């Protein structure tokens, strides 16, 4: 995994609450055996008509948002299924961070393993971000994972929480499976305990 570096980006605003993984990537796109092309079908049912024509009202179809890497979404983002295709679709599209007041547990875990930073902010900050974007749709934020800091255009800084292990893994591009594979001796010892078959 690539090291997660600090960046600055304008914001894609999706105010819906409870955005579920069936909206992020509908199940009919899960019949793949790789991760290629999922970004093209991100939010497919909101993004395209039945015949595949882009719906002009949907945020991802507005030309000015191209290249934006931050998604600002409503509460409880990523609820529903365990499909890792959801963060694969978001990163495949180009997102590097999602900001919300809360994330579903499995989605959050999956995101952290794919270089997609789930940033939890409190309700007030959340509301302020939405009003900033409403006043100026080109509002940009800086995200610095090392400092766990969001910087708003006016210079105001907001600290965000993340557990230390995930932060270290993201910053250094650490392969978590590689880390556990080094514990082979401990796992073998555990397996030989009485009662563990």
């Amino acid at each position, binding site marked *: 995994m690539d090291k997660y570096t600090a960046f600055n980006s304008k914001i894609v605003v999706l105010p819906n609450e409870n955005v579920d993984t069936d909206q992020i990537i509908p199940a009919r796109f899960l*019949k*793949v055996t790789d991760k290629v092309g999922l970004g093209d079908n991100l939010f497919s049912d909101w993004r395209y008509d*039945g015949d595949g024509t882009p719906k002009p009202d949907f945020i991802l179809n507005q030309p000015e948002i191209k290249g934006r890497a931050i998604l600002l979404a409503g509460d409880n983002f990523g609820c529903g299924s*365990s499909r890792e295709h959801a963060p694969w679709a978001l990163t495949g599209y180009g997102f590097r961070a999602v900001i919300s007041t809360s994330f*579903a547990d499995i989605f959050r875990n999956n995101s952290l393993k794919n270089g997609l930073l789930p940033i939890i902010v409190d309700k007030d900050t959340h509301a302020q971000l939405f009003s900033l974007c409403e006043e100026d749709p080109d509002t940009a934020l800086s995200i610095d994972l090392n400092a766990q800091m969001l910087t708003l255009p006016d210079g105001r800084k907001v600290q965000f929480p993340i557990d230390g292990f995930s932060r270290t893994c993201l910053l250094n591009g650490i392969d978590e499976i590689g880390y556990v594979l080094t514990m*082979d001796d401990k*796992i073998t010892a555990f397996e030989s305990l009485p009662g563990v078959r």
Partner: protein
Amino acid sequence: MPQTLFEKIWNAHVVAQDPGSPAVLYIDLHLVHEVTSPQAFEGLRKRGIQARRPDRTFATMDHGIPTYSRDLPIMDEMAAKQIAQLEKNAADFNITLYGLRQNIEKQGIVHVIGPELGLTQPGMTIVCGDSHTSTHGAFGALAFGIGTSEVEMVLSTQCLLQRKPGTAQVRVDGALQKGVGAKDIILGIIAKYGIGAGTGFVFEYTGAAIRRLSMEERMTVCNMSIEGGARAGMIAPDDATFEYIAGREFAPKGADWDKAVSAWRNLPSDEGARYDATFTLDADALEPMITYGTNPGMGIGITGRVPDPAQIGDLSQRNALTKALGYMALQPNQPLLGQAIDVVFIGSCTNSRISDLRDAAAVLKGRRVSPTVRVMVVPGSAQVKKQAEAEGLDRVFTEAGAEWREAGCSMCIAMNGDQLQPGQYAISTSNRNFEGRQGKGGRTFLASPLTAAASAVTGVVTDVRTLLGVPFGMLR
């Protein structure tokens, strides 16, 4: 110090825990299906490693497989390729597969076959790349869904890196009325507390109404823990649990059985064990439940009315409700009773076991489904199908005018061609009513098998309790 059921299982499975790092948690049982595993097996190939414990890993195919006759080929090329990939992966990594060509008599929905084969046992840690893995918690196991990177980690190391979740007690006191069942309990809890209430928690269901549930009903409750936001839901094992497991293919036998049962009897939460949160539901007051919106928390008692966005103070929740009613084409304050439906789906890992089919058949016996409704009955496994046919339930369904299909996830996730057309309404015994979940533009009402079967007969949303002549004694 008194411990909860969850804490006992968690503590018994921590292999290592570096300060500041998540626990390395040992996994007893890893279930695999075709949709969330291909990229994980590819990861093992890239690392040049084998699966660490193929003997603890079992695979089946359920999400993408057709439910039409097994004699016909799979028409969907991508699904066929994904299924062939699972066959190759199981062979290459020496994993037992219950598939369409191997052990077909035991194929089925992953959360139906685990318990059915006796693989699911109390005290275990169980994972699968599927959020409804919470189902297995009905046996007093710690069972939760994982992503594909985690599937790769478990295949590689038989362990997971996990932060310890909190525990929430979900206490259901009282006794259910006739016509009200396990599905109504869990829909009632989610309607009361919302779909995010369980985030960060493991649910433990307790109380008199839970203790009286059969194992299959307990599975229905635990299955939808994830719809309440909790990755895992658990119920303390008791005699009903042991009776269910005894004699099944992978259950311990002889002296091992006695030893296992005596260990399992120590699993229930200790007197005085503390939970981080408590949620409650009164079973006495519970009606058959039905959802009206586009997430499983948007539910009401079946005699209730659709909520009015104008009555909701919070702007974001009001907008969410307005959007949901727009998608569902429903009016504020309208009753759901009498709402016309196009499709009835009886199946999914929530409600496709033999007792669910018996419930549906008790309503459909001697009746005809409405000519305006397509009714699909999809058993959860090949073994459930065989049992239902031995009991003559298949004839009850087909004589009533319903379709009797092969086992799979089918219209719950609509990946296999079983799907709603845009604008259609379905009553579904599955677990998710998200926009497009059962087919792009499709509209889902989640309900119990009893409610689904009653509505199949009338062609409109129906309170099963009002269907004259229902042999209620058979229902519960």
